Structures are given as structure tokens and as C-alpha cells.
């Protein structure tokens, strides 16, 4: 009897022992993170999110991952009490906690809340969960437990950012007697996108109006006015670019930076659409390229994405605040009305007021962040748009890329000069603030 008991115990012991010994640690690399961000981008394209909403969807999962990773990090500082209304109650960590794994879990957990096709994120998550469960169930379990306590707090904070409330706020009113007031544009004449985005809680900005840009040149159709001159510049520039043909550098630049998530086309009753990534997504893509080019480790990768996405989100809030303050009419509308009935811009005019240029603000803000992280004169091949049928472009620095992105809106015929120039200033302001105000590195 006794021997038998001992044998059983022994067997059990060996069993347990061998289990622990056989499980290896779940290895999470930077590529895991890149892939997950890419997957979120895919789902966002499917669901068709407008650029401002997309910027919000990028920011919160990154913050959740960053916080999960860096509660007690020696290198990185928590964003708790740095971002507006954000504080994280630290959670007791278990021994041997796989923080990278937890960060990825937190990212996915927040991401699935933000998109419409949550199921697609869940399917992605479940296949990863199954894999991790197989590799090391205990490690997975404790990472998951930890991650979800952080992500839960991020979600609670996220859900109080006025997004929900702004969904039901009034649409932009197109009834007007004001000739300068924005009107919906061809071909779909969609409603103005996100007229209340300035009510969304920013991350680093003290308010949406913190970088309120100077006014655009006063609206005027007098031939010698500054405004009219800028309008005519759009016409002339577009016409000269068209004359050069489809292979011109300007058209290549315009298309490369189009970043319009939903370009709809109607041919008679036949309707189709081109779907692409947003301006924010493009800069998230550049962030990825920089990370990969520098072989950034997991922590740095998460840091870079998080900081970039925060700056992008605040850039959109800042820009949209001005867009629906000035409510400026698009060049296409004025040109069709007063100059050339048949004129169409090289790019499709996106559905929101003109001033300032969103891409200019966002690109400038992003480039400030990336320069801060990866250094100036960081040359890279921008392959972000390859999956969307656009070729690679080479840039000598983030700032030069941002400059080209801003300029591309003029080539595209969808912005006046002031919106681009002032937009860049506005974006530099936002980027500089994020760099100086939010401390990431200890």
C-alpha cells in the first residue's frame, strides 16, 4: 500500500515537473506587434473609418500596450497622469510575467472595441490565443490576466472621451446664404465628416483650440485679393500638371499621399469605390518602416507607435477644430461655380471643410515625433502604399516626407496654399507639444 502511494506521488511529481520543464516561454517580437497593427489597419479599411475616427482607433490600443509594458519599466515612463484624465491604478504583477505578450493582448483587447467588425479582430485574437495556450498556458494566463486589468482601465478612460456623445450630435447644415461656407463636394456630396471632432478629448493638447491657426486669407472673389489668387493658383497648378500628363512627378506625389479612405465612383447607376488607408495610417506605416530599419526592439516599437499615434490623434482634433470653425469652401466648389463648370481636381475632394489641410497638420506632427525618436535625416524607402497599388517613394528625412505630403494637397487640387502652409505650422506645434509635454523616456 505504502509503496503504491509513493509511486503515485512520484508519478504525479514527475508529471508536474516534466510539464513545467517542457513549456517554453512565449516569444513575442516586434514583428508580432507590427502584424497586429497591420491587421487593425486592414479591418479599418474594411469598415471605412474617416481619418479623424481612424486616428482615435490607432491611439488607444497603442496606449494600452504601452501602459501594460511600462508600469514598472526602467526605461519608459507611464503615461498615467500625463495624458488628459488618464490614470492607471497599478496592478500587482505576478512573477515571470511576459510583459510583451501582455502588451499585445491589451492592444487587441482595446482594438476590438473600436472597430465595427470586432469579430474580425476577435478571430485574429483567438487564433493567437490558441497558439499561446498551446505554447505555454500558464504564462499566457497570467499575461492575459494582467493585460486585461490594464486594458479595462484604458477602455474606461477611452469611453469617456465624448466619442459616443458626438455620434448623435447635429450634422453640418448646408443651408446657407454665405458664399464662403463649405458645401458637400462631388461625386457623392457626402455629409461633412465629424463636425464635432473638436469635442473629442485630446491626449496632450489642453484643448482642441490650443494651436488655433491664424485665419485664412479673407474670402473674396475680387481678382486681386489674396484668396482669389490662391484659388487661381489651384486652377493653374492643376491645369499645368494635367498638361504634363499622368506620368508627371506631381501626379505621382498627389496619388501617393491621397490617403482618402473611400473614393466613390458612380457610372450611371453603377457604383464602386476605391478604399485606401488614411493619412494617419500612412504615418503609422512610416513609423513601422523606421522601427524595422533600426531593428527596434519590442519596447521601442511600442513606444514609437504610441507616441506617433498620440500626436496624430491630437493633430486631427486640432485640425478639425479649425475646419469647422472656418467652414471654408473647397476650391472645387468655387471653381465649378465661378470659373470652370467641368473642372475636377486631380484627387477626389474629401468630405469636410478646407482649412487647414488635415494631411499637412498630421504629417508635420508625425514627422516631429519620428524625428525626435529616430533622428533627423533619417532616410527611408516609403513602401506604405505598395499594397494599394502605388509605388515606393524615397525620402531623405521625415520632415521632407511631411513637406511633400503637405504639398501633395496642392497638386491634388483639393487645398489652397494657406491651408497647407498654415497646416504644417499647426502640425509642428502639435508635434512639438507632444515631444515636450509627454515624457516617455525615463
Amino acid at each position, binding site marked *: 500500500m505504502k509503496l503504491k502511494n509513493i509511486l503515485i506521488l512520484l508519478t504525479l511529481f514527475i508529471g508536474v515537473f516534466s510539464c513545467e520543464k517542457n513549456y517554453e516561454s512565449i516569444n513575442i517580437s516586434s514583428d508580432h506587434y507590427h502584424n497586429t497593427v497591420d491587421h487593425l489597419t486592414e479591418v479599418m479599411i474594411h469598415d471605412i473609418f474617416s481619418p479623424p475616427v481612424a486616428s482615435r482607433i490607432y491611439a488607444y490600443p497603442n496606449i494600452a500596450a504601452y501602459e501594460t509594458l511600462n508600469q514598472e519599466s526602467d526605461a519608459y515612463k507611464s503615461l498615467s497622469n500625463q495624458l488628459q484624465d488618464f490614470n492607471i491604478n497599478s496592478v500587482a504583477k505576478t512573477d515571470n510575467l511576459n510583459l510583451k505578450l501582455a502588451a499585445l493582448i491589451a492592444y487587441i483587447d482595446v482594438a476590438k472595441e473600436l472597430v465595427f467588425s470586432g469579430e474580425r479582430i476577435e478571430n485574429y485574437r483567438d487564433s493567437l490565443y490558441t497558439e499561446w495556450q498551446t505554447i505555454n498556458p500558464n504564462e499566457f494566463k497570467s499575461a492575459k490576466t494582467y493585460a486585461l486589468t490594464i486594458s479595462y482601465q484604458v477602455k474606461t478612460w477611452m469611453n469617456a472621451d465624448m466619442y459616443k456623445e458626438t455620434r448623435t450630435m447635429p450634422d453640418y447644415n448646408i443651408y*446657407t446664404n454665405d458664399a464662403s461656407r463649405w458645401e458637400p463636394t462631388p461625386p457623392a456630396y457626402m455629409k461633412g465628416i465629424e463636425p464635432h471632432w473638436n469635442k473629442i478629448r485630446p491626449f496632450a493638447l489642453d484643448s482642441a483650440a490650443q494651436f488655433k491657426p491664424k485665419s485664412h486669407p479673407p474670402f473674396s472673389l475680387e481678382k486681386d485679393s489674396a484668396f482669389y489668387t490662391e484659388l487661381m493658383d489651384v486652377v493653374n497648378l492643376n491645369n499645368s500638371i494635367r498638361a504634363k500628363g499622368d506620368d508627371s512627378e506631381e501626379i505621382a506625389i498627389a496619388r501617393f499621399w491621397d490617403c482618402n479612405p473611400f473614393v466613390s465612383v458612380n*457610372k450611371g447607376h*453603377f457604383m464602386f469605390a476605391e478604399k485606401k488607408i488614411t493619412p494617419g495610417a500612412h504615418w503609422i506605416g512610416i513609423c513601422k518602416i523606421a522601427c524595422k530599419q533600426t531593428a527596434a526592439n519590442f519596447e521601442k516599437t511600442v513606444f514609437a507607435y504610441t507616441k506617433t499615434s498620440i500626436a496624430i490623434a491630437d493633430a486631427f482634433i486640432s485640425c478639425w477644430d479649425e475646419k469647422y470653425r472656418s467652414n471654408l469652401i473647397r476650391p472645387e466648389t468655387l471653381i465649378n461655380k465661378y470659373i470652370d463648370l467641368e473642372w*475636377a481636381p486631380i484627387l477626389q475632394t474629401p468630405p469636410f471643410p478646407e482649412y487647414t489641410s488635415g494631411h499637412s497638420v498630421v504629417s508635420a506632427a508625425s514627422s516631429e515625433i519620428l524625428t525626435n525618436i529616430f533622428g533627423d535625416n533619417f532616410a527611408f524607402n516609403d513602401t506604405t502604399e505598395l499594397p494599394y497599388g502605388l509605388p515606393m517613394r524615397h525620402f531623405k528625412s521625415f520632415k521632407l516626407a511631411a513637406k511633400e505630403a503637405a504639398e501633395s494637397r496642392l497638386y491634388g487640387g483639393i487645398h489652397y496654399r494657406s491651408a497647407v502652409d498654415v497646416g504644417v505650422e499647426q502640425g509642428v506645434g502639435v508635434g512639438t507639444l507632444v515631444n515636450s509635454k509627454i515624457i516617455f523616456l525615463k
Partner: protein
Amino acid sequence: MKKIPLILIAFFVLIACENKDKTPTSASNFLLNTIDSEASGLRFSNLVIEDIDHNIINYIYYYNGGGVAAGDINNDGLSDLFFVSNTGANKLYVNKGNLKFEDVSEKANIKGNSSWNTGVTMADINNDGLLDIYVCAVSGLLDFTGYNELFINNGDGTFTESAKAYGLDFKGYSTQAYFFDYDKDDDLDVYIVNHAVHTNLSHGRADLRNKRAPLVGDVLLNNENGTFKDVSEAANIFGGVNGYGLSAAVSDFNNDGWDDIYVCNDFHEDDYYYINNQDGTFSEKLADNFTTISRFSMGSDAADINGDGYQDLITLDMLPKDEMVLKETEGDDAMFNMQVHLNRLGYKDQFSRNMLQINNSGDYFHETALLNKVANTDWSWSPLFADFNNDGHQDLFISNGILRRPNGLDFKKYVSSAFKGRSESEGIEWLFNSINEMSSGKVTNEIFKGNSDVFENKTGDWIANNPNISNGAIYVDLDLDGDLDIVTNNFNEDAGLYENTTNATKNYITLDFEYKGANKHGIGVKAKVYSDGKQQLKQLYTSRGFLSTTESKLHFGLNTATKIDSIAIIWPNNELQTIVNPSINKDLTIKYTATDTFYNYDNSIGKKSYFKKENLIDYTHKEDNYNDFVEEKLIPYKISTLGPAFAKADIDNNGFEDVFIGNSSNQPAQLLMNNGTGFFKSKQNVFEDDKAFEDNDATFFDADNDGDLDLYVASGINTYKMDAYQNDRLYINDKGNFTRSENRILQNTLVTTTTQAYDYDNDGDTDLFIGNLADAKDFGNTVASYILVNDGKGYFVKDDNFNLKSKVNAALWKDINNDGLKDLLVATEWDAPKIYINTNGKLVLSNIPKNINGLWQSISTFDIDNDGDQDILLGNLGTNTKFNLNFDGPLVMYYSDFDKNEKKETAIAYNKAGKYYPLNSKDELAAQMNIISKLYIDHKSFAGKTIEDVLRQGTINDAVKYKVHTLASGYLKNDNGNFNAFIPFNNPLQVAPITTFTTLNIEGKNQLMVGGNSYKMNTYHGSYSALKGIIAKDTTNYEPVSNYGIDPFNTQIKQIESIKMKHSNLLLILSNANTLKLYSYKN
């Protein structure tokens, strides 16, 4: 005994044989049975091949199909058939009798040389007594070559293409040709409808139509001694790059003896209504004659459907009936901004539904497709008015269907993102390869039975309910049995042949004509058949419906009448020939003989100039820029466009009533003093100071008992959205100077619709009923309306005994029980009307019939049933509204915070066969409730879901539920002081919302003037403007106001008033967002 079974068997065999011969399928017991192509020999199929270079992506009309024409090409007395093949060979079938046909295409040499064929017409072009064939083509687009071809009949079964010799070799994007004699020189001219393929995304201004564009602009060709010359420019025919012409209806619409043309244009271009100027030119008069037209106008037909001697019109569109299709394809919500944009470019309001335009004495049309439920037959091509059951009334056949629905929302959003990772050319290829993912648009043809008043759907009864794709269609008596058979040209399947089985059960007459000159068939001749106390008018044009042509005969059903009293033939030269008592049930050929008798087109019969236009007051109501639909996205109509306010009273005691007219926010109100012959403006600074307020209603009364008249003004929604300007106002009269009082009345920031003064408590001062419609920021909630009790000094408190929480549109103090005390009548919406009996100052709610919740717009009293007592008139939304299409049970509006975001929404659901579906599209619901986007990722998953599914049963149960049981306007019949029955008005009073009933003394008799219409509705509805004004003596005797010299009402009528002047009476017609119209009249 033993022999009987044998006889029985023989009998059965006989029946079986007969069945086999005649109708191959056992289920064929319709009025119109489908005859299989095996049996008929009509093995034609319009097979359309798609490839990477030729498809719906690069030619927008790739799925429009081909036409069919009937005519006796071999003069054997039987109509033969010609079918157009878009890309293949056209076919000609000779009718061998008994619905058997022989394909003679090979010998005839008519298969065609153009790449893409469209419409077909048969006409004797060279006047040799043989029908020729004209086939339209699209050429110059893609790699399409060719031109419109004219196949001249050689009389030996062969044809020779000779278009060039006649000047008919038009090369462009032709749809269909219409041969007619517009200049009455006894030859056939032609109007060729061509279509644009313009893809400028900004649409271009409407005046583009003035600039003729080659290939696409419609053309009018004049026949000059046998050759055709383009006279479009000189004849004022539009030919712009925007003319998406898909059909025309030629008809003498205004009964002046000359042929007019209605052209249907697809997409944003307006339709054209060309009035023949009788001098070789036309004037386009759409805007003067129509207020509502179809947006995607496709086929059309004209005929007198109500027996009033004027030809009415139908134009087809593509509004689906099926719930899945409705929610999966692009709907009217896409027009939210587009409509405003198109208006700015100069286009008219157009709505995507079939339009049934009723002709009012040739002066103007009013539209009734929703009332008739013929508005939503899906992707519709050919409408054909004809008497299919020979009962003497015109019925309606509509061909339907499209190979693939190109406007699918999921395809656009989730399938077609073609260019991802592809070059542009690869992208197009991928897009082409994915078109099979577009959903099928097979849908049954539809047929409606007419009774000269209203149509009744007979699909599934008169014809099989069989989803397919039919484009061109015609009616023709193929077997000469006196009833009209139907032939359709089907897309990618065998042509359709419906045999009419009316046969000899009803009487008929068919007329054939022999006219003179080069118009031997008498195209344009009119026949009026008088029988059984009725008249039927038909005019001979052969190109009808869509791409198609019927035989040159006129067919009249006579029901059971055994004789025709007479037939008046009005020849194209307007000479009148009368045929008395012709024999019936036969084809009668009528030969022209010259007479000196001309038909007398007297369109002034029954019209008086009783009312005469005046311009004593220059006033225009101007709406402000407030837009309800951006504030609350799911509400069905605006509540901010309810003005102007009007009040009349003799302020200065000169014996003539003065006038207060309030305006909308940012426009000052006016006080106009009446001296008996004219009005002058009284300077009142306070109205300028208070111009930010929106004035919805007003009343003069002596508030402070000082012997002069003060003014209460009810406020609507102001453009600043500020509560301070939302308050009602009491202006106190101080020696003719009005000042706004403070603290005398209750603060009322609700949307006030009515204020009615009366000393209901009989204490010697005047009290007020204040009717409120809604909270400006919360459409769905009911709000309190109340009585303001006067303390005798002009300070008011609420009567706490009176409680009314509803949505009030109108009210009236009126003694309805003859006790000397006025009672209170209230019109409410999403609720039942309220009748409060005044019982010594207590207002007691009276019983009325159950289940009469409506969208009550107006309330009044009148002896409408002519029995000596006052009935209560109730103006509703009317049955000619889109709600009427899905009204199998009460309409329901739910009101709750469905998405739990502290803001309540409304959601309307309609009853379709017992199930409730959301009225709004997924995108509209998601714009108010973000959660919808998460619950339903694509449109397919949303389509067909009931409202309970969409909003979740739990939240539905918690929601406030408002019901509408009736859309009809009508009256509560006064039955010895009881009002126990609601009686709907006749159809002419249901054609639009009724907003006002005014009793006027006209020709010495009390008559009722009825006005209404609505431009408040959301994109689901469009606008309702078919109530052109009616003067009624009682429920059955009424006439349009236009018969009395008043312009038809095209606006949203607010109020109609009459003021006594020194020498006559002045009629004031007040409209929202329009000018005040004035008429003088004498009793």
C-alpha cells in the same frame, strides 16, 4: 349504364387535348397566360454578351435591353413582330395566326449592322403602303459602330437598309424614334430620343441643355418631301450633354389639336415637356405644368385614364417593393445633400418613384402614383396603358427587371475596392470579374386594373408573378380575338408572350385608319368613343412604353355595352368625322373623307374667372436656414417651416379688417392697415426688434380689457436655436402702438402651432388656447398644450383642469352642440383628434370613433354631407404619400433612447404584410445610433430585419409607441350631435396633406376651399404637392380652384383667408416660403 364511363373518358380526352393545344402549363388560368416560345415559335432571346471592354462599367445602359415592334408587314391582316437584339441579330417573325410565328429574319435581311441596337419603330416611311422598320443604335461609344437603320419594305418579304437615302442615318447614342406629324403637313416627322453618357461628377448646370451636343442630344427631324432634316435648333428642342433620354410620350396633352412631347430623362436632368407652338416650334414648359417628376425617368405612356378627355401620363422609375432590395441598394437618403446641390444648379426636385400624372384640363398635372400604389414596381421599363379586360377602363402593364443591380451598397463598400494592390487597368479587370457579385434584379412584370378612378394591383392574378427581366413591351391583338395580348423583349431569355383570355366575354371595337398624304395610317388621329354614358379618348401613336412600337390601331373595351352611340374621329388636320352607332366586336377601318367640320377644342368649358388676381399686398414668406434633419436625423418631416403667421381684425375701427403677417426667423412681421381699398404698413418698431423670432400663428384679441385689440404671436423654431427667441409673445396695443409685454403670459418655448382666443369661461374677458406641436430639440416627445385663463386685466394663468399632452397642429373654438358655448376642436398628429365640449367653462373630452389616430394637420367644420348640420372636417397627410405604400397595419413611431446615450431618438416602422420594418436605411439609423454599425456590418445583414430585430426587442418594449391608423383625410359625421363615424373623403381630396379648410361664400353659396401640400418631408418622402386647390360644395361636388380663375396651388399652403373690402372681397392665400397670393371676388 355501362356506356357512361366511356363517354366520360372521351370527354376527358377531349379536354386534355384542348388544354394541351392551347395552354401547355396547367397553372395558366390568368387573364393573360404566358405562351411558351416552343408553342409560339418566338424563339428570340436578347442575349447580351459582356466582356472586359463592353460592360456595365464602361457603358451605363448595358442592361437596358431592346425593343419590340408589332405591325402587319405583309398586309395579311395579322400583326407581325420584330425584336431588337442589343448585340446580336434582330429578328422578324411573321404571324401565322393562332399565336404561331415564323422566323423570316434570314430572308428579310433585317438583322442589322450596328454594334448596339436599342429601340424599334414600324412606320410607312416611304408611303408605299408597306410598313418599314426603323431601328435605333448606339454608335460612337466604346468601339460601337453603325447608325440608326431604316429597313425599307420591298413587299416581297425582303427589306433594304436605306437610312442614308432618307436622311435617317442618325449616328449617336439613340434610344428610340417617335414618328409623328408635328407641323401638320401630312407626313411623318420624327423625334429621336438620344441618351447622354455624361459622367461629369459635378453634374453641370441645368442650362447645359441649351447647348446642343452631338451624338447625345435629342433631335427633331422634319420630313421635307421624303427626306428628313434636322430642325432641332429652330424648333427649340434641347440637346444638351445632360439629356439622358430614355423615352418620350407624344400626345396632344393640352387639347389644342397639336402634338406635344414629354421626354423622360434619366438621372438629374429634368424631364422635358414640349408644348407645340403650332408654328413648327415647341416651348418647354415642364416647370409650369408639373411640380413632381420621377428622377430616373425610364419608359412612359400617355392615355386618358380617367375619362375626362385629357390624356394623362405615367413615367417609370426604379423604386423597389421588396424589403431586401430596398435596404441593400442605394435609396433616397443619398439625396440628402444632392437635392440641394442640384437645385442650386437649376434642376427641379425629382423623386425616385413612378409618377402617375393626372392632366387637369391641359393646364397642369397632379401626381397620384402613391395613392394608386403604382409607384414602386422596382427597376421598371415599359408602362402600357390599355384596356386589358375590355371593361371600358384603362389598365396598366409595367415590364420590369435588370440583370444585375449596379447600385448595391455592399458591392460598393465591401466588394468593389478594386484597386487595392492593382494597377488601374488590372483594377478595372478585377472590377469586371467581380460583377457577378452584384445581386440579381429579376423581378416580376406588374399589371394593374383600372376603373377610371384608382388602380388595383392584379399581378399574380391577371399575369403570373414570375421574376424575370423584360425591357421593351407592347400590347397587340395578335390573334384577332378582340383583346390585347402582350409581347415583351426579355433580357438573356426568350421573349415573353401573354395571351389575353378575355376573348368574347366583353365587347370591344378596334379602329384602323386610312388617312391622307404621306400619313396613311393617320398617326396622331384621335377617337372618342361614346358608349354607356361615358367617353373614351385615345390618340394613335405607335411608339409607346420603352424602345417599342405597337400596331397602328386603337382598341376600346366596351364592357357589357352592346352598342356604341357614336365615335368622334378627330383627324390630324383636326377635321371632325362622326360615326353613329357602328357595329361592335370587330375591326373597323375608318377612311378619311374631307369635311368642313373642325373639332372645336374649347378648353375654357367649365372655367370661370370668378376670382381675379390682385396685388394689394407685397409680401413674401422667406424661410431661414434652420434644418431639422441635421439636428435629429431620423425625424420624418420638419417642424420648423410652419409659417407664416396670420391674424386679421379691425384695429383702428374703420370698418375694415387689418392684417398681421408674421414671417420666419430673421424677417420682421408686418401690420398692414386696411382702408377698404388698399393696405398701408403700420410702423411698429417692436416687430423689427423681434425679427429673430419665427412666427407660426397669431391672434388679435383684447387681452387687457381696455377696448382695443392686442396680439398674441405663437413662436416656431428660430434660426439661432436660442430658447429666448422660442417664447411666445403678447403684444399690448397702446393707442395703435404695440409693445411686447412681460410676465403676462406663460413662458412657452415649445414649437407653438396655434393660438385661439375665446372667453370659454364666460367671465367677460378673453382666454386663449395655446397649441404646441413639439419640443424643438426633441421631436418624439409629446408636449403640453394648454388654456391660458385671463384674470380680466390681461394676466394669464394656466387652466389646471385642462390637460392635453399630445402633438397639436391646429385648433378651433366652435359651438358644435348648439348650446351657445363654443367647444374646442383640436387636430393632433400621431394621435386622435380631440373634441372638448364646453360645459359651463369646463372642457370635457368627447367620444369619437376608435382607432383614428392620424397625422392630423387641420380641423374645421362644414356641412360637407349636405344634411343641414356641421360636420367636423379633418385634414390628414392623405393617402398619396409614401407611407401609403406600406400600410397593411398602423404606422408606428417608436420613441426611446435606443442606444443609451442620454438622447432619445424616434424610429418609424411601417407595416408590410403584418411585419414591421424600419423606414430608414442602415446608414440613416447609424447616423443617429452608432451601435447599428456594429450590429450590422454590411447592408445585407440589415436588410429584411424587422424593427424588433434592429432595435432589439427589449428596448422596443420600453419605447413609447405612437400609432397612425389612417392617412386619409375625411370628416366626422354629425349625427344629431354625435360624431361616431369617420368618413374618408374621395380620392381627389387625398392627393396631398390638407392644411386648411376655408368656408367662403362663392356664387352666393357657402363653399369650402381646401388647400395643403407639404415641402417639409425628408428624403424618404420628397415633397407632396398634388393638392392643387379644391372648391367643394359637398363630398361629391367639387372642382379645382383653377376652374374659378385661381392659379393651381403648387406651394405648401398655410392658410386661406377672406377679407371684406369696400367694393369686393379679398382672398388671401398664404404659403410657406412663397409670396402671398391675392384675388378679389364678389359674393
